[in-house]
């Protein structure tokens, strides 16, 4: 482990490579995190199914690829399919727990996540899957730093979606209704906003964002039915670190998390990557709590 830390300082190009890969994957984490921030802010639900939605988006793209379609087509299709899945999930289960005890909604989405995991396992088997996007790799600095173009594409798509999301929330009628409901549901209802529809649409948009993230994951990395939970936790961490309703913060936290994770998985060994993510979650929460405690906000 210490040797690896030493190596980080001795080989700046290696460090650059790690940081670059991390930042590029961080953009995908941020994409799933926008959705979580949206749902959390509007419906006050922490959506544990988030990671499974990401994996499902990946599997939709994978299935299209198996059927012979170009994986790029997977990005809009996965988003559309997941929009429907999210809408149905809201209309069957989530709306029943939306206004209840916090833990009930947490556990209900946790149950859904197990359900989705097992269904994906039944349909696509438990193997690790990936998709060939047909994109090339750039070689920099005499072949010492490699940049997969597909990761750059993922970064770009994530950035574009972030911009579109901001425009949607600011300009469109539904976006304004979503923001109004997030601020004050009762007042929004009085003013004639159908808050139930807003909740459903928010949840469906969140699922669509996850679907797009998933199709980027399957192109740039791999998917697996049980690999969803780490994505949920990453989204949660990013939102907690950035603060609710802070989209630039979400992007910064996402990129930072990607970089930190990549460095850590090099230093500690790749088998400890997930342990590091979950350990970091606990550390961030403890630190946040200590910070809030010092500012005497903990009685809230």
């Amino acid at each position, binding site marked *: 482990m210490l040797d690896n830390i030493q190596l980080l300082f001795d080989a700046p190009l290696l460090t650059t490579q790690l940081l670059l890969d991390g930042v590029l994957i961080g953009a995908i984490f941020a994409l799933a995190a926008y959705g979580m921030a949206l749902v959390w802010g509007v419906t006050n639900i*922490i959506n544990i199914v988030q990671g499974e939605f990401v994996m499902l988006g990946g599997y939709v793209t994978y299935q299209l690829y198996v059927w012979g379609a170009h994986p790029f087509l997977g990005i809009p299709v996965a988003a559309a399919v997941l929009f429907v899945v999210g809408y149905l999930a809201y209309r069957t*289960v989530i709306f*029943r*727990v939306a206004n*209840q*005890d*916090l*833990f*009930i909604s*947490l*556990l*209900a989405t*946790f*149950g*859904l*996540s*197990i*359900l*989705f*995991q*097992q*269904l994906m*396992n*039944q349909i696509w088997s438990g193997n690790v899957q990936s998709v060939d996007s047909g994109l090339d790799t750039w070689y920099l600095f005499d072949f010492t730093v490699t940049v997969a173009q597909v990761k750059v594409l993922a970064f770009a798509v994530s950035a574009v979606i972030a911009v579109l999301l901001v425009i949607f929330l600011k300009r469109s009628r539904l976006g304004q209704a979503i923001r109004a409901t997030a601020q004050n549901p009762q007042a929004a209802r009085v003013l004639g906003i159908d808050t139930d529809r807003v909740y459903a649409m928010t949840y469906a948009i969140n699922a669509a964002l996850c679907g797009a993230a998933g199709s980027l994951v399957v192109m740039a990395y791999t998917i697996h039915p*049980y690999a969803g*939970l780490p994505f949920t*936790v990453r989204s*949660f961490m990013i939102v*907690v670190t950035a603060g609710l309703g802070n989209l630039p913060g979400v992007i910064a936290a996402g990129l930072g998390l990607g970089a930190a994770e990549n460095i850590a998985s090099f230093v500690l*060994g790749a*088998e*400890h990557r*997930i*342990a590091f993510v*979950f*350990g970091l*979650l*606990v550390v961030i*929460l*403890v630190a*946040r*709590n200590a910070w809030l*405690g010092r500012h005497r906000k*903990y*009685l809230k």
Partner: protein
Amino acid sequence: MTVSRNAWLMGAIAIFAALAPLVFPDYRTQIAMLWVMIIFAQTWDVMGGQMGYNSFGNIVFFGIGMYTSAVVQRDWGLEYFIGLGVGMALGSVIAVAAAAIMGLLILRMRGHYFAIATLGLGIAAGEIASGWDFIGAGSGMVTPLYPGHIDGRNLFFDYLFFAIAAITFLCLKWLYGTRFGLTINAIRDNEDKAEAMGLRTGTFKAFAWCVSAVFLGLCGGALGNLLGFVDPRDVAFAGPTFGVWMVLMAILGGKGTLWGPVLGAVVFHVTQEIFWTHLLGWQRVALGLLIVIIVVFFPLGILGWARERWPHRFGHRVEAS
């Protein structure tokens, strides 16, 4: 009246516990697992039900017990029963120490943050266990063989787990009647007011977690020997294993009650065994569905539902309204 009914019920369970392994020798392992499930549900309920701190991470204490016992039995060269006893005791002690340390750090969080932090702990523990060579990493650890016939082994563990479950139940029954029980209920109802009344909520919260850890550590220390194998997935919250079952059982029976978790564990264990036999391959899908159905439609659990339906039987006066 309630007291005598409790006594009848406990007597009946004791008779069942004494006779069942002898009457149904083929089901001994299942009966032992039933007691384990009851311990799980009860110890989760201390935190989740009585105190309102919904933890996903209690399974870690169980895993600590399991691994400690296995390491003691592997490395210390003790005679089987002494090794088991020392392993269980040490596992319990380490679990309590871990609960105290973690309690100081994360019990100050509330609501969502607490639940997610414990979820993180549970999963991180599982990932660490499957990457740590000293405890066998991903391939787990094999526990020593019971010196004797397998029937005798199963009978021994049946009675051992019943003893742990009974001790857990009696200890919790006693604790809920003391100042401790009142305090943790006050924390559940309104922590800020409880603190303002001068209760040292931090100490009580950490103590409640330690109570839960003592019994989970004991139980884990013994369970490794019944299963013959310690799997890193058992300590983790990875997927549908013990970690989520304990939450589910307590909620199914009715969280925050003395008998609820016991009832929930029995119902869940029986249903789960039926699932496992008849739905091979789809049992985990069914489990996910079950979680959603229980949580969405029966958040009060069986006892909570019964209490709403027949309040007078539970010693509640029905208020005219």
